[in-house]
Structure formats: structure tokens, C-alpha cells
């Protein structure tokens, strides 16, 4: 599904990702762990096509499609979704209007007709209810004045509505209390499917108690320095990242 080979990414001329290779097969959920500054968010932004994240070498493909040749919106339409660590406030644009624009843009890119408004509203309400989001909040400008936890729930809502093929969850646990974490994790787990895959970026074990990864990759200084099964999470929790930092 997602295949990254020898990826190098520079930001403002400084190389942050230095030869990263990673494969996440369809149907699997992988965790990407690593200390602050190791390049986790840089990888997420580079894969999404954010300006200023310059890929200098390597390749990244989703289901055989070269992501790096596409605009951010084309990457989204081909099934990539990034749950932001810091979701952006959109003054003046309601969550409903935002999701309508996003969903219909992706449908248009796939040659499908726009979703009729009543159907869309019904879909949004159902998905919001599952995430315990008050339907009234859908009318408010997206993320404006939302708490950290509310913003992360709305990221999960967008993911549930857009049904991406591949989702990157960038520190979805930050800002969430334990109840909200459980609800968001349940909704993410509900999206696990044989034709879908996910990369969960986090510092901590906590989120991975709820979203159980099939494999764990450790990122330090821009490279994958260790890989293993779910047991690696516990080792990291016990021993920290020190030995990987020294090795890197």
C-alpha cells in the first residue's frame, strides 16, 4: 500500500529526513515512534505535499501511485489523509461547509457526482454522533475556539467522512483526555479494513493501547533505526529512545 524508499526531505535547506524507507501493506496499522525532532511530522507533511518540505531524493508511492508527483489535493483524492497534530482554524467556514467542499472535491476528482445535501447532512450527523460531537458544533467555524480535544475529534470526523485509503495520524493523542482518546481510538479502529492502512505517529504507548499496531518503526535523526512487533512499544516505554539516539 504505502511504500517509501530512501526518502530525503529538507526544510529551509536543512535535511530532516535522511534516507527513510518504510512499507505499510494494505490491511495493516503501523506505529511510527521517535523522540522530538526526529522528523515524524516532517515525514507526514512531506507525504501530504506541504510547501517548504522539499523532497530531494527517494520515492513514495501509495497503491502504486507516485505521491511525490501530485499536488496535495491530488494526493487526498488518491486516498491519502493526514490527521494534523495542530488542526488549523478556518474562520468563517463551518465544519459542514468545509466537509462538503472536501468530500465533493474528492468525488469530482474520482468522476463522481456531488453528494446530495440531505444525504451529506445525514452522513455528518451519524459520524458526529459516533464521535460524541454535538451536531450544533458542525455549524460553527471549523476549529475556531475549539479545545485541543475537540479539534482532534473533528480530525477523526473528517477521516470517518472521507474514508481514505491511507491515513497518517500525527500525534492524535496530544490534547485528548482519556475518555476522548478512547472514543477517537474506537472510531479509528472502526475504519480498519483489508483495503486500508494507517500510520500512527506518537511519542507514547498510551494511544497504542487503544489502536494496536501490527508493526512499530522507530525514527531517530531522520532514519528508521529499529523495527519490530507491538512488543517494541513496551520496550521503548521502559527504556526510552536513548540507545537509538546514540546509535543515530
Amino acid at each position, binding site marked *: 500500500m504505502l511504500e517509501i524508499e530512501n526518502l530525503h526531505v529538507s526544510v529551509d535547506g536543512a535535511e530532516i529526513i535522511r534516507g527513510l524507507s518504510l512499507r505499510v501493506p494494505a490491511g495493516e496499522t503501523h506505529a511510527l515512534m521517535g523522540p522530538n525532532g526526529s522528523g515524524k511530522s516532517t515525514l507526514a507533511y512531506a507525504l*501530504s*505535499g*506541504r*510547501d517548504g518540505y522539499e523532497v530531494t531524493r527517494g520515492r513514495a508511492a501509495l497503491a502504486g501511485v507516485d505521491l511525490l508527483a501530485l*499536488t*496535495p*489535493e491530488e*494526493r*487526498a*483524492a488518491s486516498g491519502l*489523509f*493526514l490527521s*494534523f497534530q495542530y*488542526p*488549523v*482554524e*478556518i*474562520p*468563517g*467556514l463551518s465544519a459542514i*461547509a*468545509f466537509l462538503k*467542499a*472536501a*468530500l465533493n*472535491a*474528492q468525488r469530482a*476528482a474520482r468522476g463522481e457526482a456531488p453528494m446530495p445535501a440531505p444525504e451529506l447532512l445525514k452522513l455528518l450527523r451519524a459520524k458526529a454522533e459516533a464521535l460524541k460531537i454535538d451536531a450544533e458544533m458542525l455549524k460553527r*467555524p471549523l476549529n475556531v475556539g475549539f479545545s485541543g480535544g475537540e479539534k482532534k475529534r473533528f480530525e477523526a470526523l*473528517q477521516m470517518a467522512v*472521507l474514508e481514505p485509503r491511507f491515513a497518517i495520524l500525527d500525534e492524535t493523542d496530544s490534547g485528548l483526555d482519556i475518555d476522548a482518546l478512547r472514543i477517537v481510538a474506537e472510531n479509528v479502529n472502526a475504519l480498519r479494513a483489508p483495503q486500508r492502512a494507517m500510520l500512527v505517529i506518537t511519542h507514547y504507548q498510551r494511544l497504542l493501547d487503544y489502536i494496536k499496531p501490527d508493526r512499530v518503526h522507530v525514527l531517530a535523526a531522520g532514519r528508521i533505526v529499529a523495527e519490530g512487533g507491538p512488543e517494541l512499544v513496551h520496550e521503548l516505554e521502559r527504556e526510552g529512545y536513548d540507545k537509538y539516539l546514540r546509535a543515530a
Partner: protein
Amino acid sequence: MSAALLPTRRVEAWKYSDLHAAVGDAPFALREGGHIIERLAGTTERREVRAGDHLVVAERIDGGGGVDARAADFAVGEGASLTRVVIQDGGEVQLSLARVRLAARAKLTQIVLAFGARLARVETQVDVDGEGAFVELNGLYLVAAGRHADLTSVIHHHAPAGVTRQLVKGVAAKGGRGVFQGKIVVDRAAQKTDARQHHHGMLLAAGAEIFAKPELMIYADDVQCAHGNTAGGIDERALFYMRSRGVTEAEARALLVEAFLAEALPESLGAELREDLMGRMRAWLREARS
């Protein structure tokens, strides 16, 4: 009379709108005294909103060639309300002056939607004469290449406990020029005044121009006054966020600009009028994109 009587940029109140340069040396039969727009208009329309009444006026300013100047005076009585909607679009030199006097507890809601002309100025002067009056004086400008829109206002609080809310927003395309000059004066007698003035301009491309001169002159000590003024480009983070969800760059820009502008439409206008004004702005944005 000669055109030399028209203000140049050296006149402070016209520093961003060079009327003399725009009109040239054509002679005018100017009326004596008063505001230059009033003198050019020759006549001043006078309207009164009697105590307790409500008046809604819609003005469309879209004269053809030459100089089109108009002046109006509104006297709004105790507890009365005036809603004024001004749509300015096109023409050569378009000048509009409105003076509004508010008695006690009177209310003025104004929205100006200006698409500019070779030189367009929509000027409003409000005198808060009575206690507890309310002013919502909002404006929007959308200027394409070769267009100039100037929203100028003076809100003068002479009486206590008045409230002013002013939000002016605008966008300028390459080669377009937007101007906001807003002065709020709070006299010593106007204690307990609560005035807020905000102007936010968005430059849609390099080569767009926005000039702003916000001014607060406060002579009373027990007042609440706030103002803010910004001019910048589109929020790149918001743009990427929307694109990462699949919205095309052009559509994302249009939606963000629309959302930016919509905020200045007063709630009290009602859904139908707001939608009408929004529709005009959307049409402009579509054209600006193509």
C-alpha cells in the same frame, strides 16, 4: 472655478485618493462651502427617520462616465433605526457622502459593498448626538485591476453611552487599490462610549495595494475603545489544510476569501439580504479567478 479646487494627495483626508489627478482640469461649478463631495453634488438629499420609525435604504452607485457625486443627510430620531445598504460598482469617478445624525437610542446599521471605479469613494460621517445610540458601520471592498475603492468614515461620539461596531474587510487583486480611512472621535462628554473598529485587508496577489488609516481620538476617560488593522495575504496554513482534504487550490482560495469577507456582513441584515450581497461577492471572486 477650476479643478485646482479639488483636493490632491497633499490634503490629508484625500491622501490615498487623488481626486485632482482623477478628474483632471475639467472646470466645475462648485457650490460654496461644505464638504467637497457635497459641493460637487450641488444638492444634498435630506431624509428624516422620525422617533420610533425604521427605515431601510438601498443605494446603488454605478454611474457611467465622468464625475458622479451625491450627498445625503439623514436625521435619525429617538429610538429610530436606519439601515443603509450601499452597493458601488464601476464608473469613472464615483463620490458618495452621507451624514447621519443619531438622537438618543437611535440605531444605524450600514454596509457598503464597493467594487471600485477608476476612483470611487464612499464616505460616511456619523454624529452620535443622543445618549445610548448604536452604530454598526461595516464595509467591504473588492477591487480588480484598474479599480480604486475608498471607504472613509468619521464616527463622532458627542453624547454618552454610545456603542460603535465597525468591521471593514476587503480584498485587492493585482493592480487594484483598496483604501480604508476610519476615524472615531470620542468627546469628553461622551463618557461610557464603547467603540470598536477593525479593518482587515487581504492582498490576493503581488501588485495589489491596500492603504489603511485607522484613527481613534479619545477625549473622555471612562470609555472602552479598541481597534485593529491588518493587511496580508491568504493564510497559507489554512490553504494547505483544505488542499490536504482534497479541495483544489482555486476552490480553497475562493472559499477562504469568501469566509474572510462574509464576516463583515451584519447579522441584522437578515439571511436574504446577506445572501444577495454574498452572491455578488462570489460572482466577483469567480471572475477574478478566471
